């Protein structure tokens, strides 16, 4: 137990360190601008005086490390600064959008995880059958599809031809839960199709790997049914790699939302970052990147810790 705690503490520290370095990179990126933020904002025609005044307003006249520490300290208190495009508080812009994005990612995960685990176990059970090969080819193809292709096919079929679903996912904080689930079903399905393949293939591979071990042969020789051997004997030992791949795919979901949100005009963080990149609204891009990166790092860290806990062998690295 002590060892596990040590290991977890070690990973957490490492994760925080990575997060810290990433925040430096995101902050310093702007320093690479030809000229500086003020020049980039005001353009070539700006006079020296306005530039100087603007620099002062953005506190660009202070040394870099002071600005970095202040920026980081403010963010830790939830203050991301102001948008350059419309002067609004960034934290205000982000608040509802972040919860929308998290909602979409969670919704997709609720569909994708059980579905891909079931399909994966089935593929392992009926290995080398027609079902297995079909699923294999289908998943291999679905990884190869760009997200917007899947999204538009769904729109084309379900919104335009069948007319069942709305092609735009407009949600606001007042939207009731039922309607919210309904309008975000299409983006969630798109994301599901994007992440499912990987999870399914890993589940299948993890189980098949185990099927060669002696204790499975023993179970087979005892005359247990195939389903029982796989579900009761193989699956429990396969959890570690499966959990790992599930969490990694959740991390991918958080990033994958960007394109899907743009297609469905879903008011999330992905939309915001894309709009801000187009306007070169640097503070907003920095804030969004930091949030995306932090979520991504935290989820990957979780995957790491979970796999250590579920596989005691990893505690004794050779």
């Amino acid at each position, binding site marked *: 137990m002590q060892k596990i705690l040590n290991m977890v503490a070690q990973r957490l520290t490492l994760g925080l360190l*990575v997060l810290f*370095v*990433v925040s430096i*990179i*995101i902050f310093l*990126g*702007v320093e*690479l*601008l030809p000229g500086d933020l003020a020049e980039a904002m005001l353009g070539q025609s700006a006079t020296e005086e306005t530039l100087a005044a603007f620099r002062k307003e953005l506190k660009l006249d202070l040394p870099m490390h002071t600005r970095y520490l202040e920026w980081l300290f403010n963010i830790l208190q939830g203050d991301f600064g102001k948008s350059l495009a419309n002067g609004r508080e960034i934290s205000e812009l982000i608040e509802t959008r972040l919860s929308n994005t998290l909602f979409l990612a969670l919704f997709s995960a609720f569909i994708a995880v059980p579905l891909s685990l079931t399909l994966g176990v089935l593929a392992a059970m009926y*290995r*080398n059958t027609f079902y297995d090969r079909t699923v294999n*080819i289908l998943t*291999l*193809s679905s*990884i*190869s*599809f*760009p*997200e*917007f*292709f899947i999204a*538009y*096919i769904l*729109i*084309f079929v379900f*919104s*335009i*031809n069948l007319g069942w679903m709305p*092609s735009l996912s407009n949600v606001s904080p007042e939207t009731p839960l039922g309607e919210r689930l309904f309008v975000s079903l299409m983006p969630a399905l798109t994301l599901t199709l994007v992440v499912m393949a990987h999870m399914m*293939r890993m589940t*299948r*591979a993890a189980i*098949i*790997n185990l099927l060669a071990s002696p204790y499975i042969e023993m179970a087979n020789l005892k005359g247990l049914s195939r389903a029982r051997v796989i579900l009761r004997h193989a699956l429990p030992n396969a959890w570690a790699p499966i959990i790992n791949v599930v969490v990694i795919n959740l*991390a991918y979901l*958080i*990033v994958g939302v*960007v*394109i899907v949100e*743009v*297609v469905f005009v879903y008011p999330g963080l992905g939309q915001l*970052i*894309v709009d*801000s*990149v*187009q306007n*070169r609204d*640097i503070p907003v*891009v*920095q804030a*969004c*990147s930091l949030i*995306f*990166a932090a979520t*991504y*790092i935290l989820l*990957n860290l979780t995957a790491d810790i979970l796999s250590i806990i579920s596989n005691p062998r990893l505690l004794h690295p050779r």
Partner: protein
Amino acid sequence: MSEVEIKTALDSADAKAPPPKVNKWDEAMLELKKAPWSAKFGFLVIALYVFAAFFAPLLTPFGESEIVGDSFLPWNETNILGTDNLGRDMLTRLLYGARNTVGIAFVTTCFAFLIGGVAGMLAAILGGWTDQVLSRIVDILMAIPQLIFALLLLTIFGTSIPVLIVIIAILDSTRVFRLARAVSHNVVVTDFVESARLRGESMGWISIREVLPNIMPPLVAEFGLRFCFVFLLISGLSFLGLGLQPPTADWGSMVRDNATLITYGDITPLLPAGAIALLTVGVNFVVDWFLHKTSGLRDGQ
């Protein structure tokens, strides 16, 4: 792995001493004949795209960004797939798109392999501090999601083709680095590398003559996979309006520009997206077959 080593060792021996001449082309053709239908299909698709990319100007009477009629014309005899939002011929843009989108993805992947491969081999051969420093840099770069990092860098440097290529190549080289380092690591500890070191061979000689031939098969397979990722990433960025800029014909931005047609039940905007998907599927099928042939890197059937 050992089988692969022997095989590549034999191959390079063949190249030096030709007497028992087995025609490589015939051999490759024979292998191809035995390949499953999915791999054959993949090769066919790739050949088709390469053909379209090279001969685009000969295949269509219109220019890449020539306006040939009204916007959003339906499919007809002169404009087989109709026209786009600015009245440019859709089929022409599709063919030129093969050249631009695929070409840029290919160049980017080559750069990524050059950077990642060299750095990975260096890290494995030199070890020690070089390895530590390079590996930690890669860890940090990989901790930020690729799309988000690309968006951040594109905001800072603006969107132009050279910037796009450099940014994506560097971001993607991290994955190549990991693989190149891992596979070279297995080779560096072998006796033949040790004896080359004792002979006093130079670093360059060891990496090119001893290590590189032995890490080729996994790297080639990885090249296919990385190409797919880069291709999808660039198409995604173009779709967001942040990749290749107009008037360059590009599949991602073609989907974006003509997406309104989908709401009228027209599938034309899906064609460029389908073109992206088809090529990625093709490459994936070929890579899958190649991996099965060369090693057990992926779970077999």
